[in-house]
């Protein structure tokens, strides 16, 4: 039961490391790669604080073994924007007070990022359903929903302007 050689692409960069198969993706990201945006909240796939984007899907990285993720393309909150070029969701979460303690925020935004790609023009109800894998204890979600709807509108406006 030794360590295995694992290759990942994380936020666009190829990464190779040795890990025990049982190591959880969240620990690999946080401990081995010092990517501490995704957080550990519940450890039983309920809270979504550990959400990352893996091969085009939102997944809870506390419930993925490093071994399962071998070969995967992983995007975390750190890969969504830069200080000089924030993702629209990052801007809108601030603009609409969609966060308080900030602990759920990276998972929340990372999930919203995938959700808006699948449903670029959602209703409020669709946002609430699409975001129901992420818990927040501070905001009561109302401003999170508002922020995501605002981000969708902004992304659509940009898309329209480009056409």
């Amino acid at each position, binding site marked *: 039961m030794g360590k295995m050689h694992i290759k990942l692409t994380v936020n666009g960069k190829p990464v190779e490391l040795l890990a*025990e198969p*049982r*190591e959880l993706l969240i*620990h690999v990201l*946080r*401990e081995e790669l*010092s*990517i*501490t*945006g*995704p*957080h*550990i*909240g*519940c*450890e*039983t796939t*309920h*809270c979504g*604080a550990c959400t990352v984007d893996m091969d085009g899907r939102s997944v809870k990285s506390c419930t993925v073994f490093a071994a399962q993720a071998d070969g995967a393309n992983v995007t*975390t*909150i*750190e890969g969504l*924007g830069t*200080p000089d070029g*924030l993702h629209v969701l*990052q*801007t809108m*979460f*601030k*603009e609409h*007070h969609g*966060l*308080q*303690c*900030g*602990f*759920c*925020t*990276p998972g929340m*935004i990372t999930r919203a990022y995938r959700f808006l790609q699948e449903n670029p023009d959602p209703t409020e109800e669709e*946002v*609430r*359903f699409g*975001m*129901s*894998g*992420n*818990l*927040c*204890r*501070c*905001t*009561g*979600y*109302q*401003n*999170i*929903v508002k922020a995501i709807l605002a981000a969708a509108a902004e992304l659509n406006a940009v898309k329209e302007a480009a056409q």
Partner: protein
Amino acid sequence: MNEMTPPKTERTAALKGLGSARKRVEDARFTQGKGNYVDDIKLPGMLFGDFVRSPYAHARIKSIDAEKAKALPGVIAVLTAADLAPLKLHWMPTLAGDVQMVLADGKVLFQGQEVAFVVAENRYIAADAVELVEVDYEELPVVVDPFKAEAPDAPVLREDLAGKSEGAHGPRRHHNHIFTWEQGDRDATEKVLASADVVAEEMVYYHRTHPCPLETCGCVASMDKVNGKLTVWGTFQAPHAVRTVASLISGIAEHNIRIISPDIGGGFGNKVGVYPGYICSIVASIVTGVPVKWVEDRMENLMATAFARDYWMKGKISATKDGRITGLWCHVTADHGAFDACADPTKFPAGFFNICTGSYDIPVAYLAVDGVYTNKAPGGVAYRCSFRVTEAAYFIERMIEVLAIRLGMDSAELRAKNFIRKDQFPYHSALGWEYDSGDYHTAWDKALKAVDYEGLRREQAQRLEDFKAGKTRKLIGIGLTHFTEIVGAGPVKNCDILGLGMFDSCEIRIHPTGSAIARLGTISQGQGHATTFAQILASEIGIPADDITVEEGDTDTAPYGLGTYGSRSTPVAGAATAMAGRKIRAKAQMIAAYLLEVHDDDVEWDIDRFAVKGAPERFKTMKEIAFAAYNQAIPGIEPGLEAVSYYDPPNMTYPFGAYICVMEIDVDTGEHEIRQFYALDDCGTRINPMIIEGQVHGGATEGYAIAMGQEIAYDEMGNVKTATLMDFFLPTAWETPHYTTDFTVTPSPHHPIGAKGVGESPNVGSVPAFSNAVHDAFRAFGLTQTHMPHDHWRIWRTAHELGLHG
């Protein structure tokens, strides 16, 4: 000599001071994943600690064999009570005057109790080693029912207290009894009740629950043996108090301890207490000489750290026939679990539960609280509330409803009839508080109008008819609440924790170029202090909030303060901030007068500057004054521009609000739908409306969870039945209702800026609103009282017992 002066409105707006919906400065790092929480901290050589915990609720420990664990490669140490005893650290003081085992000393008293602490190279090895520690238990009889705890033949839970008939709060009458706390006038109250037209009597239970912030508790302890300094990063809502306690119990001089609260992923009261994990990490770091991290997992969090509530409240309320309340009587049986670790001010073993007369002018009242030990986790923390205010508000708001039923009155009318009137403030309550200010009737009328209360009642009546005619299986409930909080502990003359007065503090340094840093003794856990305290200061000292850094949470740099809980940050630290700002301004006035070559009294404050009275074109801006403070020799004035204020509030503040919930209930499945939730808050002066609204949304969502499903439940063996988020209810965006917020403004007369605090109001106020809605739906069928949480099966049971299932 001066530039053109922009108009006052423009200058005021540029400050982003009081009343501005300023965007949060914290958000840049949080939205980019650059927050710095405890588990993000990684130090060279850091080890990881993990607990062996008791599977039993009550058992004697016959032996602990850690040899196999110690033999596992990567395991550094396994600590047990025997290792801590020589250091006198196997027990620790609680915040409530009791003592608590750090590691099981001879027996365990609740499931999940800390038995041994494994220290290993990483968390994987630590977890493997935990499995290898062999503990031989002998099971003992378990007490989970607080009413059975005081039976003559009940098992002795706390053997360490054997023979002690005096506890921290007076006499103990039984080996599982902790204290009796009495307030008010018993004889007078009983006399009033005996001769009243109407007396309503009910047992109101506020069940055991848990604050469950998304980030669990944890710390990194680092003992630097070279210079003798201990640094602890941790999820601490009160870093200075932790430093003092750590010094007192470890013997390390306080100046050699540095406590740092980094970003905290929500607290809600869970992170006020001192937990065994902190002590064990510190000891492990001292023993090993390297940093040790401990972070609990979610099951540990729910099972072992800091439950809330668990109050059995027996009430009697009397009134005249026409609905004038004449007296209130209450007896509480308080289940404190295995150790009394409530986070209450020392002299208040039941916190501020004596606010239980609520928003009403009740001439006479009596309250007694009995605390008892059971085989459950310790805690009794203020879960987004000011020390048992949630329980008190729930109690009185249920008793009002029960009384309304007895009187056959509309409960909105009953409330309005008994509110403390505006002209009665400051109001002295029958249980000893002085309410600072309020205008309940105005708020109440506004709320009823906003929801079209009468229209709702008509719709409800129609629905009831339809239900009886078999046209629908859904009932409508209208839940009303008017709550009054008591927050901002508090006056040092009657509020302390472990002897530490509950003042708070702010230190301000103005930099030569006119920007500033403010440091406080509080610590944000999402409340946005870095944003709002800068706003308070901006209005006080005329420096834009954007030019003010707010720093909290490092005991080496922040002035001493008692931390953030009990909605005390705005009332106490916010006041300290304003007062420190005023000291800055006072000195700035002297500098300005010198620069303008006039007498101190001849300049006046004008938003962001001092101007010569009667000659507004002659002025010095704060920026100019700040520079002068550092580069000019001013006779009689020390260089620099700094101030510190330690604020001891003269009184608590009393925020209040009117909440209304409209709920649809499916009597067949017990499911519900929140159709409308209206929340009117009066928190005095409003610092940042955006943040206030966010606080209300969040607190109301916690209240929704508590009322409708969230609980820490035990079986009769003392097993926790709700130890993961599968069973412990935290609503998602899908379940969470939509909120409408509203406000009135009744400033606190004694607070420097009139602010009262708001963080906890929505938890305090929403729980009775949700619960009253459930009760109200069934009122027509004779329901007077049923217990929370109102999950599907309990609502179904209510409907069933009322014969609604045919």
